[in-house]
């Protein structure tokens, strides 16, 4: 083994270039990894979006004939799986990667190569799950994969295996990234950056990382149990004929799944909490309350999972308990919303595209939250569960919430990443099309749900009163598609002739705005010393800033005395090994479907990768 890996390392010479494809594939720079995450998950966003469009076309009219029922089931399963695991989570991760070291005044993350490994495992997992379309059919049992519809007896194809194994792989990516960010945030803050001085986005990242490391093992166990049931070992975890209980799957899935909801929304809340103060020129109102509300939401996320299961028959006591805990989540959520609104109050609001998206987030998220209240109550949920009303609810939370906030983040931090501003005119068009489109698409779903239209049906007859709103929804989904197109046009056009952003285009508040755009590899030429919350704002306007104290020339960390030119700063070198290890791991998982010999090959590659990784110095 040692000689094999030794020679392998010899063949794969340590990458030294800073340009070209190979430099990107071997990069361990958190900013580049962030960009890779962003680009990759945006591609998945387009794939998941096209899947949604096909679903909407099928449902535009009664008795739709666009796709057959099997393909329909595959498409909605893949749409949700893609959007949750391959879009919102990794897009959030793109922001984590790019921003966290910048916001806390660090030069890198704690484990740069582990970071690269997270990315490559994510890519491999995403490609693996999507490759199921080519190998006999995609998963078709929903993103929640309820047992025992996923058992061999009722689901003979390998789609479910692609799904379960792919999610296991993606879980590794999330875990590795989360450990990395926990250590980075706890351990690599600049001098003076106490916990209660950290930017809100950093705080929410920390909460999300903790949710991930505690939630991911649970879903991993459930997925492994599922694969064992489907394996030649023929275990009985979810097999009722032999004493197994399909409800166990639901508990394990939602024990993960509910924290997952907060994993999807908390980064969005973090982004909004950065954007609003910037364009209101005011500090976040009630910072400690917003932080603790975020932590509390994360904590409460563990006590509400069974509200996804009110109709399962848990009994009145359990349903009451989970109803009350669920309603209680509205309290910290309310605190956040009121504090955002109070941040705007008395501010000087500038409606940039980023700001519009963040305001859109608040408004849409309120709708999603309030519709959530109506099914936090089990008796009303008995009618709404598994109808389009629920689909409406979580799209207001995940599209109106997460996606709008992520777009806000794009427009906000794009200049930091690329050095160029996105076009505001196109940006506003992007915003209005998206918000009109999403309300046309998801608003009527409330009505359809209350009008008795179940989810996940590939067809419906005429005469149910569902025709009109379904057609409107389909039209709305096309408007959303148009808005995404406008965004792409914006990106392409400004990349050619966009306005130069400069280090601080928005009069920013946090440390990332104190360094050039795009930041140099080492981020900070001199490590900043933090004097308080909104560290860069304080640098510009003084500790008691605002009220006329308007500095013209903010200090920057770009140049300075001593070794401030950055040439003497050693950054970790690129490495192939994270990619090799990720490839090995994915082969190992794929082997469960394609033959265990492949798992063996994968294991050897992975172990070789780990061994070489452990013996490779951080830089030669």
């Amino acid at each position, binding site marked *: 083994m040692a000689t094999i890996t030794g020679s392998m390392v010899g063949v794969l010479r340590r990458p030294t270039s800073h340009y070209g494809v190979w430099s990107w594939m071997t990069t361990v720079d958190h900013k580049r990894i962030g960009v890779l995450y962003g680009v990759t998950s945006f591609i998945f966003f387009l794939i998941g979006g096209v899947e949604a469009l096909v679903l909407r076309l099928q449902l535009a009219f009664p008795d739709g004939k666009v796709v057959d*029922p099997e393909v329909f089931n595959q498409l909605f399963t893949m749409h949700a799986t893609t959007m949750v695991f391959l879009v919102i989570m990794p897009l959030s991760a793109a922001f984590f990667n790019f921003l966290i070291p910048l916001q806390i005044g660090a030069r890198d993350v704690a484990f740069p190569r582990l970071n690269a490994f997270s990315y490559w495992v994510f890519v491999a997992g995403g490609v693996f799950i999507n490759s199921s379309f080519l190998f006999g059919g995609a998963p078709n049992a929903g993103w929640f994969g309820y047992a*025992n519809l996923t058992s061999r007896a*009722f689901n003979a194809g390998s789609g479910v295996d692609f799904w379960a194994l792919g999610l296991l792989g993606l879980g590794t990516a999330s875990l590795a990234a989360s450990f990395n960010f926990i250590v980075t945030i706890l351990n690599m803050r600049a001098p003076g950056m106490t916990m209660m001085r950290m930017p809100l986005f950093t705080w929410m990242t920390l909460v999300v990382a903790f949710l991930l490391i505690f939630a991911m093992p649970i879903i991993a166990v459930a997925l492994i149990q599922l694969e064992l049931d489907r394996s030649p070992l023929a275990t009985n975890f979810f097999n009722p004929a032999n004493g197994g*209980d*399909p*409800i166990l799957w639901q508990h394990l899935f939602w024990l993960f799944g509910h924290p997952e909801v907060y994993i999807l929304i908390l980064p969005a809340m973090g982004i909004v909490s950065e954007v609003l103060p910037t364009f*209101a*020129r005011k*500090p976040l*109102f*009630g*910072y*400690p309350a917003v932080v603790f509300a975020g932590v509390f939401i994360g904590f409460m996320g563990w006590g509400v999972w069974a509200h996804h299961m009110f*109709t*399962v*028959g848990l009994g*009145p006591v359990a349903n*009451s308990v989970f109803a*009350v805990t669920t*309603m209680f989540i509205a*309290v910290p959520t*309310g*605190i956040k*919303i009121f504090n955002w*609104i109070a941040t*705007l*109050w*008395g501010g*000087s*609001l500038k409606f940039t595209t980023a700001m519009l998206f963040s305001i859109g987030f*608040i*408004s849409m998220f*309120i709708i999603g939250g309030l*519709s959530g*209240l*109506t099914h936090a*109550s*089990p*008796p*009303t949920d*008995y*009618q709404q569960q*598994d109808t389009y009303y629920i689909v409406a609810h979580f799209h207001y939370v995940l599209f109106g919430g997460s996606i709008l906030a992520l777009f806000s983040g794009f427009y906000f931090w794009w200049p930091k990443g690329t050095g160029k501003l996105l076009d505001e005119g196109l940006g506003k068009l992007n915003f209005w099309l998206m918000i009109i489109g999403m309300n046309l698409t998801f*608003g009527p779903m*409330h*009505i359809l749900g*209350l*009008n*008795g239209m*179940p*989810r*996940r*049906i590939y067809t419906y007859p005429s005469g*149910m*009163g*569902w025709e009109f709103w379904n057609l409107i929804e389909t039209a709305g989904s096309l408007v959303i598609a148009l808005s995404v197109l406008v965004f792409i046009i914006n990106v392409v056009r400004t990349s050619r002739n966009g306005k130069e952003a400069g280090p601080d285009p928005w009069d920013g508040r946090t440390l990332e705005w104190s360094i050039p755009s795009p930041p140099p590899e080492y981020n900070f030429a001199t490590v900043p010393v933090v004097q308080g919350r909104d560290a860069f704002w304080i640098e510009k306007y003084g500790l*008691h800033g605002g*009220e*006329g104290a*308007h500095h013209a020339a903010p200090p920057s960390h770009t140049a300075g005395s001593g070794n401030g030119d950055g040439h003497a700063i050693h950054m970790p070198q690129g490495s192939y090994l994270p990619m090799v290890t990720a490839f090995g791991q994915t082969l190992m998982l794929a082997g469960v479907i394609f033959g265990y010999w492949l798992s063996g090959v994968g294991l050897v590659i992975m172990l070789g990768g780990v061994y070489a990784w452990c013996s490779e110095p951080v830089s030669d």
Partner: protein
Amino acid sequence: MRNLAQSSLPARAATGLAKGATLSSRRSAAASFLSLVLVGVLALFITSCSGKDPQDTLSSVGEVAKKQQELFWIIFAWAALVFVLVQGLLLFILFRFRRRSENEMPAQTHGNTRLEIAWTLAPVVILVSVAIPTVASIFDLAKEHDVSMQVKVIGHQWWWEFQYPGLGVVTANELHLPVGEVVAFDLQSADVIHSFWVPKLAGKQDVVPGRSNPLTIKVDEPGTFLGQCAELCGIQHAQMKFRVVVQEKAQFDQWVKDQRTPVQPPGDPAMVKGSLIVQQKCSACHTIQGLAGAVGKVGPTLTHIGGRGTIAAGVLNNTPENLARWIRDPQEVKRGALMPNLGLTEDEIQAVVPYLLSLK
């Protein structure tokens, strides 16, 4: 930083309002949009209460569904109130505090403990007033009422079996209930998880293999109500429907009597041919009481299929043409259904259809 003066919001609100009177009439784009959404969403909700649609949950008929609907409106009223207040406030702020000059620097407010406590407690009050009727309703719905009839529901991929243990009746996809009686359902599954749902009569309850879930339904007026499976259960989840026929007691008793009567051997020679084909081709999977050998349990019972309003689990109206189409190629109607193409000749189909439709 902590030394910064904390301006009091109410005071600023007052000045804000005073200034508001002299503001220019130009509204910010975001504000006008939000007002659009606000009005739009409320309008959408109001138009949704038309009541004519067959699965409308907001024009309930059954007692359970009515209670659930009542609770919905209570919660909806709270939600609507919060919606109007908060979105209204947001709109006002966007309008009032928009940036007027690039040089303006607002007061650097960091927080206000009293206000923050207030808006922590306000939701608590609302939530308590939602939680109390919720919990009361949960226990009310779970109470054992004076049950006068039991029905066992068995979910199959993709059809429903209804057994009346006290009456000795077994039927499929068409549930008959007497008006005004409390019917206790025992929900079980033969394969995967389904969910039993008749929107106008009661909220749904999952049908889980290995478990037995209770549900009560009481309907006070006769009528035909549509139901369908609400939990993804495979390729034909969308086409796992059923109908509930609520009848006056006398009519219901007559229906029970008819159901208990076994099929009589046909006299008409054309019918005899049909019965023989059915015996040969259908009996392995379907039960027809009174027809020798027809005791299969895989598919729904065909005893009295002629009396049902629909076939293929609520997918097609029960007409001779539709029945022929179904028998000719079930996969064309319902892709993935467990009923295979039997390869009957057109002649055989023309014999089978009238025979089956004669079983009333």
